[in-house]
């Protein structure tokens, strides 16, 4: 469903992403691992059509991200970590509905969908309150709902659990697993090995923009003869602490 074809991105003097090629199927969770500055966010932003690749390309649902960015956007949902970007003066429902409408949903379908999402994400209590005073976890739920309100086939998640407490992170992880069960292709980046191990079907390790290795977690552990994913990771990126 997602196919990266020698994709690369150069910012002036930094080669942020260098010749990445791999594909992710529907119903699969793909983990993107790499140290700070490895190029994870840049890769996801290119897939989200927010950045233009300087070399190569990628396809999403068969659509070229460079030639048909507007078409590609119909099929993706993004959740980029850090600050949850919401409109404080709108209610949770209004925030979600705004993105739903911009994604072409009509009022009836939208209402049904938001009610459904607010039930699954346990937001019924605060769905009609303004998000300004929400806790981080509450805001995160709204951002998740917003990202998938139009039921996209491909989810792009950049460090989605960063800054969340254990329960909020768990809600999100359950949600990601649920996306896989619905047949969506999920690509997400993370620094948290336990989360990666629990969720990912396959992982790709990138270092300085290049793909160092790719495979299932068990496969990689066997290949490098180490049962600790973190140590495999450090070994692969050439760290000294291994």
């Amino acid at each position, binding site marked *: 469903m997602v196919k990266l074809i020698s994709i690369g991105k150069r910012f002036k003097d930094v080669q942020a992403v260098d010749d990445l090629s791999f594909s992710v199927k529907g119903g699969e969770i793909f983990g993107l691992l790499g140290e700070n500055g490895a190029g994870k966010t840049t890769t996801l932003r290119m897939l989200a059509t*927010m950045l233009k690749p300087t070399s190569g390309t990628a396809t999403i649902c068969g659509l070229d991200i460079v030639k048909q960015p507007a078409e590609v956007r119909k099929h993706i949902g993004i959740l980029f970590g850090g600050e949850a970007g*919401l409109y404080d003066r709108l209610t949770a429902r209004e925030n979600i509905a705004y*993105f739903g409408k911009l994604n072409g949903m009509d009022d009836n379908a939208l209402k049904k969908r938001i009610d459904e999402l607010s039930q699954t994400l346990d937001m019924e209590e605060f769905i009609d309150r303004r998000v300004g005073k929400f806790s981080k976890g509450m805001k995160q739920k709204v*951002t998740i709902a*917003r990202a998938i309100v139009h039921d996209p086939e491909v989810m792009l998640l950049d460090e989605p659990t960063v800054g969340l407490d254990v329960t909020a992170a768990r809600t999100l992880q359950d949600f990601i697993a649920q996306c896989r069960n619905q047949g969506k292709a999920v690509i997400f980046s993370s620094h948290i090995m336990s989360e990666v191990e629990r969720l990912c079907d396959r992982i790709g390790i990138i270092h300085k923009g290049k793909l160092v290795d790719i495979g299932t977690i068990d496969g990689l552990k066997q290949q490098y003869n180490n049962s600790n994913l973190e140590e495999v990771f450090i070994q692969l990126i050439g760290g000294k602490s291994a």
Partner: protein
Amino acid sequence: MKRAWIVFAKEMKDAFRDRRTLIFSILLPALIFPILMTLMNNVMSDVTEEATENIVIAYVGEDSQLKAYLDSLPNVTIMDSQDPEADLDGSKVSVIVEVKDGLDEAMASGAKGNITLKYDESKAKSSMAASVIRETINAFGTQVARQRLQAKGIDPEFIEPLDIASINVAKAQGEGAIVMSFLLPMFLLLYPATGAMATAIDQGAGEKERGTLEPLLATQVSRAALAMGKWLSTSAASIIGTIAFMAGFVVAVIYNPTMFGEGFTASPSAIAAITVLGIMMAFIYSAAMLALSVFARNIKEASTYLSPFVIVAMIPAYATMYTDIKTVPAWQYNVPLLNVILIVKEALLDTINWGHFAITMLWLIALTIVFLTMVVHMFNNESVVFRS
């Protein structure tokens, strides 16, 4: 364009829920003129009233006809003062009238009498009272002069050889039109700018700062629709702000009709032209401000970029304060903003040249399109979207 409407509706809802925006772009503008004028009016009329309706003076010197004359005036009270200088200093009296002995004899014999007025220039009340008293004493002097002439059998008219009559030939508009021809163009350049500012900042740089720009751009909304929706809602805020200002101004003028002099009227076509220009100003400012706001890294930077608008808007208004609209060279109608002011001045004299009006409109529309195109381009430009 349905999506532009969705953006518009959301931004309007958002703006109307922002108490700060509401206060600063509607309530404050609406109240500023009425408050300012009520204050000014009260203070001014209080001072003038006190200073001229009830003047307390001290009289120094022997009794005279002048003293009797002053005493007979309803608005003058002569106070018995032990220390007139101290009373003047303490504002107990406004003026001291000092008369040299033998005034009555001097008047009767045809000689000159000597009178000294003492007052305090640093006190508005005292200096206003002094000029009233000076006029009063002059009137008394004229009376004496007439009596002297009549006593010698001469007609008092004899020493007034000229009779000067002045007739004002300015168009019937009067003083009001002169003040309005400065104020109205300035309002038209200023208010749409102040009205658009808060909303423009929130909708451009605000999206970046909140982190909503990236998810927004990842939806299926086209960049053109996004720019259009934001531009229209900023324009709406600008127009609402301008109407609020104007409403406040009109209310103030209705309650103090003499504030700007009387006799101001405008023809329906002039009012229509001014209204259209006001709306165009809202459109062009909104497009320009949005472009700068989208370019800015954050809200603070956007505020820095946008605040000069207000000053820039006032330059042509002041520069044309004394312009005679009949002698303006044609090229000036090709200078954006300046041409708006010139048309308003034409409208107020009811001499709109519709050719000038068309040129002005073309400039405004062309620039608005340029700015809007810039906004669309910037939404497509990753180095602007992720500028940090």
